[in-house]
């Protein structure tokens, strides 16, 4: 018999012998859910992922996560309409996280700090031609170059940037920012031939020895609206107004300017007219505000700047200094119908902003290309019906924003890379696989979205959004200085830390702390936790108290 202390008659063992895990009818499992911001991002950014880094003050790390998907954070942090913030769960708590502002902060930091992106050195590099140095073309070039392919961009204009330069006014996107982010892509070894207009794509493809082509020429032809006009009426289109302004030669518009149309371009044109000295800039639109295609944010900022709106009106006739408007009303289907009521409106010039179209003339000799409705049609891999010819951006899709174009470029680059690696080098190899033989990689399984109901919001502290300071109204109206100012480091950190980390563990230690059975093992910083199923009784407190919904209870089998 073992020696025991005085008065101790029984041998004592630990309760660890009692594996209480056998009581369990359901078990907790750690999951990663898709945060709604990531889900909503047209560029497919891992927003929660880079906010996670930014929360720690690791701005370069955060920027690098962003750069996995988006080569131009400083541009996007200014011109993106941030669907992510609309989707943000925090809006239910107080206000959405200022994701766009943080992205801009990171992008600006990168430009100041001269941060660079590594280029891979693959065994086999392809040669890819990109047509158009707009957001989509630059994005595709960046992603292809990062994977080690040789990339050349042909740009018809004398400067790169596409609509970012010629469509978006400088007060929304300062040119040094745009130039800085383009230069970073060029420095990676992307060749851009400016002033190289492609008139016949077949000639370029056959002559250049390229393995694949990405067509991203955009939609740069202003659509026309027929307006009977007198000789003295001054009518121009919004794109050429914005284009000439970008070149810093300011057109004479006169005292009162009428902009015809209801899209983002119309807003930009009206705000630009105001900056060019118009005392009155009036937007004439045939429907109502809620039916305007322009983004709410831009309409808001335009109204703040004193832009006037004429809803439910069309221009019937343009004369010298005067327009004839006809009032409209919406029918049951929501279409505007003429009422026969007319009124006059003073106008020194009329700017047409009734949409843009793509120039498809360069594609005339591509055999069997599927085009209709002014667009090039692509499959799920962004490839056109012609093998090796991919297309994206405004030329192939209806959502014409910089963000969607950048997302398109990324997606196309991924598929072009796969196409090249699966042997699709049609220019060099005569026996290249046909489109049917080309097997696109299956898309990764999407995680379930982390909704508001998945969160336990008790744990998040209340904190209002950091409101971006704005230039005062007067200054904004008279110059092309940037309208929305950026965050400094303190409020950027603050803003990043407002992220709820929806659906993704951020190591708050709650599960580890609240388990009555000590059945959660903490693995250390950055390594998260694991369950000890030998002892977990399946009470579910960890799942109930997880702030971000990263634990799911699943029924045990049998």
């Amino acid at each position, binding site marked *: 018999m073992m020696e025991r202390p005085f008065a101790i008659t029984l041998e004592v063992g630990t*309760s660890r*012998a009692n594996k209480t895990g056998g009581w369990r009818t359901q078990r907790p499992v750690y999951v990663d859910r898709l945060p709604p911001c990531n889900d909503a991002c047209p560029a497919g950014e891992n927003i929660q992922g880079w906010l996670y880094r930014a929360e720690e003050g690791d701005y370069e790390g955060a920027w690098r996560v962003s750069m996995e998907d988006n080569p131009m954070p400083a541009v996007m942090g200014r011109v993106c309409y941030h669907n992510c913030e609309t989707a943000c769960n925090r809006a239910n708590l107080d206000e959405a996280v200022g994701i766009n502002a943080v992205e801009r902060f990171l992008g600006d930091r990168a430009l100041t700090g001269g941060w660079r992106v590594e280029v891979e050195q693959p065994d086999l590099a392809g040669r890819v031609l990109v047509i158009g140095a707009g957001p989509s073309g630059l994005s595709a070039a960046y992603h292809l170059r990062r994977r080690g392919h040789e990339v050349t961009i042909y740009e018809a204009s004398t400067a790169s940037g596409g609509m970012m330069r010629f469509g978006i006014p400088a007060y929304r996107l300062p040119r040094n920012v745009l130039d800085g982010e383009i230069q970073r892509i060029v420095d990676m070894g992307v060749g851009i031939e400016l002033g190289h207009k492609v008139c016949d794509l077949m000639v370029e493809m056959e002559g250049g020895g390229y393995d694949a082509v990405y067509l991203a020429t955009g939609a740069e032809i202003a659509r026309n609206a027929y307006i009977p006009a007198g000789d003295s009426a001054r009518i121009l289109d919004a794109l050429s107004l914005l284009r000439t302004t970008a070149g810093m030669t300011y057109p004479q518009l006169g005292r009162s300017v009428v902009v015809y149309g209801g899209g983002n371009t119309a807003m930009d044109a009206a705000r630009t007219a105001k900056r060019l000295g118009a005392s009155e800039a009036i937007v004439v639109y045939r429907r109502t505000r809620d039916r305007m295609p322009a983004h709410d944010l831009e309409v808001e900022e335009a109204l703040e700047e004193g832009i006037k709106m004429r809803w439910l009106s069309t221009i019937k006739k343009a004369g010298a200094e005067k327009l004839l408007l006809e009032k409209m009303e919406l029918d049951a289907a929501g279409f505007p119908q003429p009422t026969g009521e007319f009124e006059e409106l003073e106008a020194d010039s009329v700017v047409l902003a009734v949409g843009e179209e793509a120039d498809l003339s360069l594609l005339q000799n591509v055999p069997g290309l599927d085009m209709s409705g002014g667009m090039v049609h692509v499959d799920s891999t962004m490839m056109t019906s012609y093998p090796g010819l991919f297309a994206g951006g405004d030329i192939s899709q209806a959502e014409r924003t910089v963000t969607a174009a950048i997302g398109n470029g990324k997606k196309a680059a991924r598929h072009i890379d796969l196409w090249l690696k699966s042997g699709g080098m049609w220019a060099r190899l005569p026996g290249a696989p046909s489109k049917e033989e080309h097997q696109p990689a299956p898309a990764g399984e999407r995680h379930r979205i982390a909704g508001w109901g998945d969160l336990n919001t008790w744990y998040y502290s209340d904190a209002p959004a950091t409101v971006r300071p704005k230039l005062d109204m007067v200054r904004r109206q008279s110059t092309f200085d940037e309208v929305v100012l950026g965050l400094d480091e303190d409020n950027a950190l603050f803003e990043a830390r407002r992220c709820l*980390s929806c659906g993704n563990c951020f190591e708050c230690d709650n599960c580890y702390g609240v388990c009555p*059975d000590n059945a959660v093992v903490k693995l250390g910083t950055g390594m998260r936790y694991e369950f000890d199923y030998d002892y977990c009784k399946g009470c579910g407190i960890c799942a109930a108290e997880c702030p971000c919904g990263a634990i799911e209870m699943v029924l045990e089998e049998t």
Partner: protein
Amino acid sequence: MAYRQVKFYQTGSFAVGGRLLDTPERTVQSGMSRTNALTLGHRACQGCGEALGARYVLDAAMHATGNKVIAANATGCLEVFTTPYPETSWQVPWLHSVFGNAAAVGSGIAAALRAKGQTDIRVVAQAGDGGTVDIGIGCLSGMFERNDDVLFVCYDNEAYMNTGVQRSGSTPPAARTATTEAVGEEPGNPWGQGKDMPRIAMAHEIPYVATATVAELHDLEYKVEKAMEYRGARYIHILVPCPLGWGSEPADTIRLARLAKETGIFPVFEAEKGEVVATSKIRSKVPVEDYLSLQRRYAHLFKPARRDDVIDAIQDSADRNIRRFGLLGEA
């Protein structure tokens, strides 16, 4: 709240830890080296609030004293589920007393340590609400009166759960237990009975009295560590929801503790020498119904016929707590 709240972090001071907090701002429970005074394999029910509370308290006490703690434990759930022969879940020197004398045993240990000159070793005596407010109140009152150097912790789950959910002096009005069935004009536990033990402790004017719940860990640990700074009699009363006795979902244990505080049903405060010195403010006030409706011990208030008279009376007593302790306002 008496402890300093960390503002502007993702999870403020409410979560257990967090990588964005400086180490001193994190709880003892968030540490990989926490002592786990109550270890794996204990036989508490799923979602047991008491098992959670006991680990929180003893780990914090050990942290505050460099692990020099001896625990005396009254009979009750906590004793039964941790020490069925031949196993123990305790990783701390631990003595089991009879039901009513944990305070006296604690006093005895403290006296022995003083006699041996080992006053660096500290004593925690612990019991459930039965062992505290009913059976053990005589020994406890004596311990308070003599100002013995013991921290007495009551884990209050509001009935005798271990023996089959009989009413205790801590069972709230209208709650159904095995001995206060939901029948008659006034179903459940009668009104106008029971004991408010924290205020009884305060009446002894001992150095420190505090209440806490398992829902706010920072607050709980702060109070235990603060209690260990005092010499003399100290009392902490901790609300620990009981899924079995309350008829609640095991996963709701912490939620219920949180609701008990946010409704005003369970006031969370600190008192020194009989005087309230700090209260934990309600963050966002909710009606008592939110708390009651999650528990089957109150099911008779909602069906077959809704008893608004009783619900209103419970709301009145919560509102009285809010007034008495000043539970609303800026933290």
